[in-house]
């Protein structure tokens, strides 16, 4: 790790100010991704602005039609939340399936989304449910927020403050764990929303999370989904799974998620 200046603002406004004052500042949330990256000397921010003291970024509110989760809410808190379990049980289950207890007690929803790891779980829920990402500057629809591998629409000094999830009629997320990392090798989120069926796939795509419209059409038509509509050319190949295997798994996970969400 290289030297850096450390800031501990207690409101998101102060955090934003600290970020705009920094030469090459980075937000620190749960640190589950950022700190290992810094230890490996792959990131060398001049300033770290910790959101840990920003209590205005923590918490879960549910009004029956929307669940709003503060950016600094940990995966563990989402998994344990009675409100989330009641409104969108699939989201609580997804959060409970991220990493291990240590990771869930430190890692945050804001950090996960800002990082946009192509194998992360939350992006599938945010895109699958058509959630809105609220930042210090604007509100972004899920479709506009995710921009490819580890890429988002966030500007350098823009901070995610909360995520607003519309409550679906029903939803389910089924994940096939990467055997080693236990991130999603393939994860499929299926939601029955007021706007129709939404299906989001994480772990598989070369550009990160994506919507599977062919599968959405199959489910809407009352068919058992399969992966015939998925373009293998757009999927990842690595030592754990070929694109062909990922394509197959998308079908299996979609079928299981559709069954669980019906």
């Amino acid at each position, binding site marked *: *790790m290289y030297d850096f200046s450390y800031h501990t603002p207690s409101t998101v406004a102060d955090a934003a100010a600290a970020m705009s004052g920094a030469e090459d500042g980075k937000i620190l949330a749960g640190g589950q991704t950022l700190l290992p990256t810094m230890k490996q*000397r792959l990131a060398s921010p001049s300033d770290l602005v910790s959101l840990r003291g920003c209590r205005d970024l923590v918490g879960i509110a549910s009004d029956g039609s929307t669940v709003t989760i503060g950016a600094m809410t940990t995966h563990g808190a989402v998994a344990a939340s009675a409100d989330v379990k009641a409104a969108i049980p699939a989201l609580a289950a997804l959060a409970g399936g991220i990493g291990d207890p240590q990771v869930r007690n430190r890692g945050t929803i804001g950090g996960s989304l800002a990082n946009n790891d192509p194998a992360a779980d939350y992006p599938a829920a945010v895109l699958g449910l058509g959630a809105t990402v609220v930042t210090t500057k604007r509100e972004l629809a899920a479709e506009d927020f995710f921009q490819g591998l580890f890429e988002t629409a966030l500007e350098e000094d823009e901070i995610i403050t909360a995520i607003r999830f519309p409550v679906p009629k029903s939803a389910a997320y089924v994940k096939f764990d990467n055997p*080693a990392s236990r991130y999603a090798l393939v994860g499929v989120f299926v939601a029955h929303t007021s706007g129709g069926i939404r299906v989001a796939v994480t772990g598989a795509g070369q550009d990160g999370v994506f919507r599977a419209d062919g599968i959405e059409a199959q489910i809407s038509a009352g068919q058992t989904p399969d992966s015939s509509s998925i373009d293998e050319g757009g999927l990842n190949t690595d*030592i*754990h799974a070929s694109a062909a295997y990922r394509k197959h798994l998308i079908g299996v996970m979609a079928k299981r998620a559709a069954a669980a969400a019906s």
Partner: protein
Amino acid sequence: MSATGIGAAVKRKEDFRFLTGRGNYTDDINQPGQTYAYILRSPHAHAKINGINTDAAKAAKGVLAVFTGEDMAGVGGIPCGWGVNNKDGSPMNEPPHPALAIGKVRHVGDQVAVVVAESYAKAKDAAELIEVDYTELPAVAHMEAALAAGAPLVHDDAAPGNLCYDWELGDEAEVDAEFKNAAHVVSIDLTNNRLVPNAMEPRAAIGDYNKGTGEYTLYTTSQNPHVIRLLMGAFVLQIPEHKLRVVAPDVGGGFGSKIYHYAEEAIVTWAAGKVRRPIKWVAERSESFLSDAHGRDHISHADLAIDADGKFLGLKVYTKANMGAYLSTFSTCVPTYLYATLLAGVYTTPKIYANVKAIFTNTVPVDAYRGAGRPEATYLLERLVSKAARQLGMDQVDIRRKNFIPADAFPYQTPVALQYDSGDYEATLKKAMELADWNGFPARKAEAAGRGKLRGIGISTYLEACGIAPSAVVGSLGARAGLFESANVRVHPTGSVTIYTGSHSHGQGHETTFAQLVSETLGIPIDNVTIDHGDTNRIAFGMGTYGSRSLAVGGEAIMKALGKVVDKASKIAAHLMEASPEDVEFKDGKFTVAGTDKEVDFGTVALTAYVPHNYPHETLEPGLEENAFYDPMNFTYPGGCHICEVEIDPDTGVTQVINMTAVDDVGRVINPMIVEGQIHGGLAQGIGQALLESCEYDESGQLISGSYMDYCMPRADNFPGFQATTESTLCAHNSLGVKGCGEVGAIGSPPAVINAVLDALADLGVEDISMPATPQKIWQAIQSASVPAAAE
């Protein structure tokens, strides 16, 4: 049986210390004035070093010194501990292994320079200022590439064809003759996957030099501090034993990877002499992946000749073994004397031939890893036997039974040099089949099929050789050291006892097991016994812990020394009781005289030895302390039967291990709880190898499974509850009758798991799968199977 004697399930004495964070590991040790080393490693698999500019690094803040291979050029290379000869009798190719690279780097992670600084961070910062001018060379990352015509040479002229040796055991023509009589020949090609050991504690070393006395001290994460002292002192740094102390304090797991003398140990010790300050180096986990010796990595072909009745007639095995870029301490003996000599297994196969080619590649050195050679032999044999059963239409169990060495055939001379002293393979098989409910399997398979799951059962009946080893035998086979063990029993004046053992515990529970030997023999409570190990200044000598040798060799040395203590104590007791020593009996801590009510206890005798007022000074020295060295007569031969039952989800290829049954013959059991724990750990590693773990290099020699993101370490939820128990015969050539239990779990289980996977897939026509049998591989096998699976 006493509460803390032989056979008692005593809770591990050391666990309180470890579980409450009071262990004292190398990284917990800090010396006044300590500095820190960072090792700059090669990013290339194979490159020429044109020059190294260390000026900026040397000038960096907090830096004391920067050394490169040129600075260490006068120092000896890292030695190999076992010479293996080629078929034609010529010695193996043994290219130099400099502690810091000279002229060339040969694997990603090869040591290039060391920075010594006031803090680790400063050392690491300064290392970024070192400019190494490399010319990248084509690399050979896999054995096929290394053997291809015109392949780049890892060691140039020092190892033509990238060959270390081309070795054989047995007479190929004689075995060929058996094949002429065979009704069937069954052949197999398989790979024993390369593994990364991943001890929980990364390697670490602290070098220290005392200007006043001229003594060097090395604290290191080692399974055998005396061996390190010998290798580093005599071969690398030329420091005589009396000026070199090596301490291996608490060590957090080794699994073989901490047997070897590593360059970092020599570097910090040597550099401490230069900078005149203690130097600490602790590996980061990613460094461990790139610098701890890896395990396994064989490619083999084998043919088994069988007669019309299913009796094995002959076996031919052709193996290529990856050595990596340099010869690690025991690398050369693992695929030869710890592998080919095991190819008889538990069977009466009369003729066996093995040919092993050891190959250099641009990868991390490969050496012994839990089981070392025996898992490779067992995997080959037990896959082959199961394949033979399928090919001949025989039952998996029947074919094994038909070929077992019968229980009354011991001592049994195999055609591959070893002579087994004891065993009862039918007994372990029978018990395992009962525990696993082998006969109930068809019903469970049918039930699973109803749930859409493919259920399979697999068996392995195996044997291994441990208790390493009779020195004269291994010496004649090329070992460059003896493999005895030493023990010292110090009885203190009040009757408590300290044992100084040359064995080293890094998780095995010696502090308990060895104390049980003392408790049993001297009739004293286990709490009155301390087991000390790991410091060459306190322990007379030691060859350390590996090859499941600690109890069978180190424990025997302790028993021998205890015997001497009892002899002397009996004489003191005889004097006190005014009896003749021949009439004195010793039992449960009391000396008695037959036919009288005379009695003195052990504590009184101990006190008398140190307060010798009333004492037979004419014939006995005061004090009660004895040494012993023990060199075993033979290897020991644990064996047994492992049965695995799996369910495969045909939709995803995921295998779930439903049952894992292990019935092992480990000889006499001193502490059943510790034995069970050792077997559990071994099974975890065996199942890990079979289903999860794989060390992968790309063609250019980059390690692509270099972290836990990609290297699949087994976790608790990968396993069912194990059924592990013992069914033992006694070792015939040691006093305790013990054989060894540290490796059996990892040796017997991989073929049982793979045989179960193949059994589950057999109806689909799948005949082969390689380790690790990952979901993707199984899915692919199902896709290309001759019989389609029921569609999703």
